[in-house]
């Protein structure tokens, strides 16, 4: 029996599998395998992906801009609709239109949302040199519940994400429509989730802070790893360009606890993804590629 000294990265296998297969030619059960491979490939292709989700105007983009360290995406109750946006660590400047499948990214030299949206990508991918992005990637999605949006794009991003930050506006928090949308997200994602209660800075909310949190604990306490109250204006004062300047304020704003919890969940989710990918390769991909041993998968790939 052959023995591997170093377990090969499942990413390479997944990549080969999805590159060689054509989804349209597959049977429906094979398609499910293919889609799972596609999802795991995307999740493992960089640091764990953290999905910022919630209804529209819940403060998702404000949070994303804060963590990225620059106002890269518009925030306003009247903001125009964008495709999902992914932020990862890197020199800022370029923007990519990206797809979940094997299509190649289209690169743009400057951040022109109109041009980016015009090629109809699954998501837009941006880079920034924020320390927060060293361990994770962030994905911001258009909010659900907006009648002007025909398709809720959150589900497709959710299939390719590892950790969930569900933003709920403290003023009207955890409504039935939110609960329902959340309940339809993949269970493995919901297991790595925090509930971020935004707009805690509003005067009426400040005063009723504990009562708001008590209600949320009662209704959703069991469903999230942590419920974190968050004040974006305070957080904005505590950091600049992604660097924490005022540790105490950063923590009291909710930013510190959020990042700590998300990083912890990201580690756990990555471990899950690896295990899942290992099982998928072992049980389905290797047999379907009719290989004698999973190790044979890597032979051709190393030397193209």
């Amino acid at each position, binding site marked *: 029996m052959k023995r591997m000294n170093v377990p090969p990265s499942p990413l390479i296998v997944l990549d080969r599998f999805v590159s060689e297969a054509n989804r349209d030619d597959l049977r429906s059960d094979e398609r499910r395998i293919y889609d799972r491979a596609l999802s795991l490939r995307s999740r493992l292709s960089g640091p764990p992906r953290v999905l910022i989700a919630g209804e529209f105007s819940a403060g998702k983009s404000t949070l994303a801009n804060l963590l990225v360290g620059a106002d890269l995406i518009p925030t306003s109750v009247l903001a125009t609709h964008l495709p999902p946006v992914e932020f990862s660590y890197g020199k800022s400047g370029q923007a990519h239109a990206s797809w979940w499948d094997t299509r190649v990214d289209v690169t743009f030299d400057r951040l022109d949302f109109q041009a980016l949206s015009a090629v109809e990508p699954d998501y837009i991918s941006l880079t920034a040199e924020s320390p927060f992005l060293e361990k994770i990637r962030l994905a911001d999605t258009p909010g659900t519940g*907006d*009648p002007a949006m025909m398709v809720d794009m959150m589900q497709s991003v959710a299939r390719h994400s590892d950790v969930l930050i569900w933003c709920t506006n403290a003023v009207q928090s955890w409504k039935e429509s939110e609960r329902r949308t959340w309940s339809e997200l993949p269970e493995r994602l919901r297991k790595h989730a925090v509930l971020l209660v935004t707009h805690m800075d509003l005067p009426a909310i400040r005063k009723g802070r504990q009562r708001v949190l008590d209600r949320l604990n009662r209704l959703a306490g069991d469903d999230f790893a942590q419920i974190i109250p968050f004040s974006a204006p305070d957080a904005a004062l505590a950091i600049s360009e992604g660097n924490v300047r005022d540790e105490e304020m950063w923590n009291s704003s909710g930013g510190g606890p959020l990042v700590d919890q998300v990083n912890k969940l990201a580690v756990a989710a990555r471990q899950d993804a690896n295990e899942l990918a290992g099982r998928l390769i072992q049980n389905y991909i290797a047999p379907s590629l009719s290989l004698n041993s999973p190790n044979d998968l890597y032979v051709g790939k190393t030397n193209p």
Partner: protein
Amino acid sequence: MMMENFHPNLLEHGVGRRLNNARLALLNASDQLTELSGDELTVRVRPVKDRLTKMMTRVAVVGQIKAGKSTFANCVSRRMDLLPADVNPWTSVVTQLYFGHHSGKNSGAVFRFFDEDQWDILANRGGRLAALTEGLLEDYKRTELLTEVRAMRMRAEGRLGEEFDGLLGKSHRFSSVTPEIMERYVSAGDELAAGAVAENEPGRFADITHTAEIFFEQSPFGCPICLIDTPGINDPLLIREEITQQSLEDADYFVVVLSAHQPLSKEDVRLIRLLRALDRNRFVVFVNRVDEISNAGESAEALRNRVAAQMVEYLDGTEVEVVVGSMEWAKYALTGTSEFLDQAVLDSFVDGRGLLAAAERCAHDSGLDLSRAKAYVASGIGEVETSLSRLLLQGGSQTHFLSMADDLKSVSGQLTERLKLRLNPDPKDAEPAEKPLTAGEAERLMNSIITQANNHIQALEIAMQESCDALGDKLADQAETFAEAQRDEVKAAVADVGRDGDISIDLDPLRSRLTKTYKSGFDEIQGVLWDELKSINHSFRSAIPKRVEQPLQTVRIATLPIIGLLPRSNPFNKTVTFDLSQTWLAGIFARSDRLTDRALDTIKTQFTDIALTTVDREKELFSETLAETIQQFEYDLKEQLGAVVEANASAAAEGDTVPPKVRQKAQEDLAKLEKLTNKLSKLQADLEREFSVK
């Protein structure tokens, strides 16, 4: 509950005053008629008078949880501490605030508890929602609903202890209400650990309170009004959805409160589409909490325009008034105190919207200091009250008033003729060939006219019943056809999309098709009835002898009560269960053919039931109106013929010697009646012009 803190000039907004002016003018006319007839007409005029006295406009405040509905109701009531509000969803009972109730009650409150049956349906079986979804919901969701219901039952029993059993079916009355009393009955209260509960704990009676009625004098409103505060939709506690549905069915007008954080979400659209099926644009939209969003001053107008444009889109071109503002600012403007006021935010909003001049004008006119005047103009409270007042002129009031004015005019015409008869006109004016009418002749004439009219009405009644039945069948057919068509579509969609797809059945097309059929069917039946009544009048007129033509000229079968009947505005909305609970039902269609079949059967049955019930009620309504109309005709004819006979008899006995005093009084009365008739004609013209806004 105190009003003293308010600035006096802003105490009265007089919403509904124009409506009330018309009402009071009609009431006044009916009193004058009774008086001029020497109480002869008291019985005849009473139904009109009763209707006018009891008139009550019902306005419901609706929207999602925490949009600010209760605070809105407090502000337009000018009673800031009336309805309890909290940082969490807090209203759990539909609360009816009566301003100027016809009983004369102007203080105090009645809290009615569920009776045994109602409580059993709600607390043991989960209410209509559970009944309608039995076998449809996936088990875990149904379990969740029942768990919630059980928790509610235990909470109620825990909070009330031994008292619980004695309370069902009873009510609690208070001669005056305090915020603490209100909180005990209408607020959700906090979930507490099991154990003894303090007497005055908020929410103590909330679970078992069925309705809350609070009474005030009419001010600050301009007409008698019932303002209905409702628990919000989209509450994860589903039992409150159940409660809110009833208020949707009850009200004539609506204020839809949205949050500026999420100006028009899918849930708001769902609610608005339900209201749209109410057929008239009988609601105003208030976008609240503008004080809580950033750069509100610059974006408020764009926000308003966007919501207004979306409304036009979702309402198929109907324009609805949209007002942007903040009830927090209204509170400050009206009372001078606000816990949460940020003056800088207010100032920047006023600048951003260019409201400074308006604020200065308001400060000058009202005597408010500039800061409060700014809050007043920025809050939108004045605008929304104006919109509401305009709104109240639409809807059913106009036709009702017109019909009543017409009826009073006809009665005053009859009284005129009777007075003229009593004046015993100079024999020289009468046709020489004409003989006076004897009592026997009058009776024969009366019998022949009435028999003929009754025969005609009976035939008409049968034809009407048949048409209504045919309409019911047609509606049931349409519901069935729709359900069958959906069956195949949904199954195909399930096969295509699989379990994860979000498949739902949009009932709006069915609703609008049924409503259209129903309305045109109603119009047709109504049109036939109207034509036939006119033709009865015509044959009656040609049957009366010439010599009594003059005194009988104002006697006729009233046609306006039939014309004034409006088709039921929202029969097919009663199926709100399916829409309001859509988030719960979403799972159904993607699950299995069996569940899809059951869901579609339920839809079919619900709509068919409603169609048949509606048509039955229509039958009753037409039937009652016909009966009332013919009864009134009979009464008028009898009185008028009696007056003719009596006048003839006294003329024969006394010759033309009517005592001068009597003659003078009759002549004065005649002059008054002429004035009254003119006044009624003018009122009719005004009603036709003023009320047809847009």
